[in-house]
């Protein structure tokens, strides 16, 4: 059992949720309530990581992370080391890959709030910010929680993108999914089995929570 790898995965998952959730909420709100041309296109962009092979995402990220690219050189000057093969690089990759897992549940939850409820709140004199705080956030809470749990669980399980942009550096980019792969190659089936079981249980718990929340959400309508 590689505890360092599990710890790293948990830290990565928490960082991803913390960074992604606020951004994704704004995006989800825009997609749920905004009336603009090209919404279908933006929705398709958000959903892309669901369809794209991790190698395609990994390939583009590697190019974006290289010291020749603006993003890569910016982080190089900020961190003093390259973005590729670093924990920070993994967080960035993970935020991107998890976009649909965070945006879609929140968008659905926000869209499910009856329009007349938001209108009524506004008629009663609630400021737009209060509408978000007192109507949208509480009613979309199951969606937000689902987004958090899905993002967390999916980050723990991410493999392909991490392998391509992270390598397998202990304590830096060797996540638990990569550690399992390494252990299998080292003929250490026992450790691989223990870690696989940990991921299996975590994923099951996450999906259990998500489903419970989804049922709560359905009861709203």
């Amino acid at each position, binding site marked *: 059992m590689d*505890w*360092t790898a*599990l*710890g790293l995965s*948990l830290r990565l998952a*928490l960082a991803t949720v913390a960074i992604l959730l606020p951004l994704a909420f704004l995006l989800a709100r825009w997609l749920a309530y905004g009336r603009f041309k090209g919404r279908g296109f933006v929705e398709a962009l958000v959903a892309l990581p669901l369809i794209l092979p991790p190698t395609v995402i990994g390939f583009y990220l*590697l190019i974006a*992370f*290289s*010291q020749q690219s603006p993003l890569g050189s910016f982080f190089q000057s900020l961190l003093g*080391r*390259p973005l*590729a*093969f*670093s924990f920070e690089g993994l967080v960035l990759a993970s935020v991107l890959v998890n976009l649909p897992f965070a945006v879609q549940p929140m968008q659905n939850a926000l869209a499910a709030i009856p329009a007349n409820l938001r209108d009524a709140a506004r008629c009663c004199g609630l400021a737009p910010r209060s509408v978000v705080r*007192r*109507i949208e956030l*509480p*009613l979309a*809470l*199951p969606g937000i*929680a689902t987004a958090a*749990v899905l993002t*967390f669980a999916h980050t723990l399980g991410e493999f392909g993108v991490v392998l391509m942009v992270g*390598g*397998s*550096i*202990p*304590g*830096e980019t*060797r996540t638990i999914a990569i550690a399992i792969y*390494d252990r*299998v*190659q*080292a*003929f250490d089936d026992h450790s691989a089995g223990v870690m696989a079981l940990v991921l299996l249980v*975590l994923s099951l*718990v996450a999906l259990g*929570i998500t489903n*419970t*929340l989804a049922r*709560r959400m359905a*009861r*709203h309508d």
Partner: protein
Amino acid sequence: MSHRSRPLTRPAAITRRVLVIAAILGAGLLITAARARAAEPDTDSSAPLVAAASDLKFALDEILARFRDATGIAARIAYGSSGTFARQIMRGAPYEVFLSADEQFVHELHAQGLTRDTGHLYAIGRIVLFAPTGSPLAPDPRMDDLARRVASGELRRFAIANPEHAPYGRAAEQALRARGLWSALQPRLVLGENVAQAAQFASGGDTEGGLIAYSLALSPELRRRGTFALIPDSMHAPLRQRMVLLQGATPAAERLYEYLRSPPSREILARYGFVLPAE
């Protein structure tokens, strides 16, 4: 609480309970991980970071354990294919010591100014024909039985490392070409990302065998899983394995590099079937 908001708060309260449970579970996990982290020595991010060809897996694990006993320094190690590591180092991966299975990669990195010097030739690798227990294949140095089974169509799957970036894959391809088996075997090849994965494929029982590193075949894990025959080194270009200190190597990494050239390390390498170049 105002009358208006009451119908909204009940489902939200249940949701909150689920969230609290999730948070407790998450916190418990984090604490477990943090504790375990503190208990493990090789999580220290100042420990020398080593990238090593995967044929070294078992030998180097032993050497690093001895090094830790002798110096108290626990190295962080990643095993993989030498070509993949070379590309990662070119893209800025922060490794400090690189043990390549093919010296060409070290020379390329040196030409780009990424290494301290031209490094040190630490071993010459050999390949073996491996057949897992239960396979009809009987390994012999001339690969005669392999040729027979390829000709009769009995052989369904055969594992080697990917010749495009794994030195042992290249050596395997050269040996198969030298024996005139390459084109007949090609549709049946299973390619490992590195030679350790090839060894895993060759020994798992889903293939009839494979060409893998002698050093891996000599490990207890693989000895239990099948039989092998050493391929004559005249059948492939020598696997000249070179190691090097990369730019940015710390003093701890320098000590490890010295240790890798010391008699105890050489003795372990020899035990794992590596041919040692003269000092």
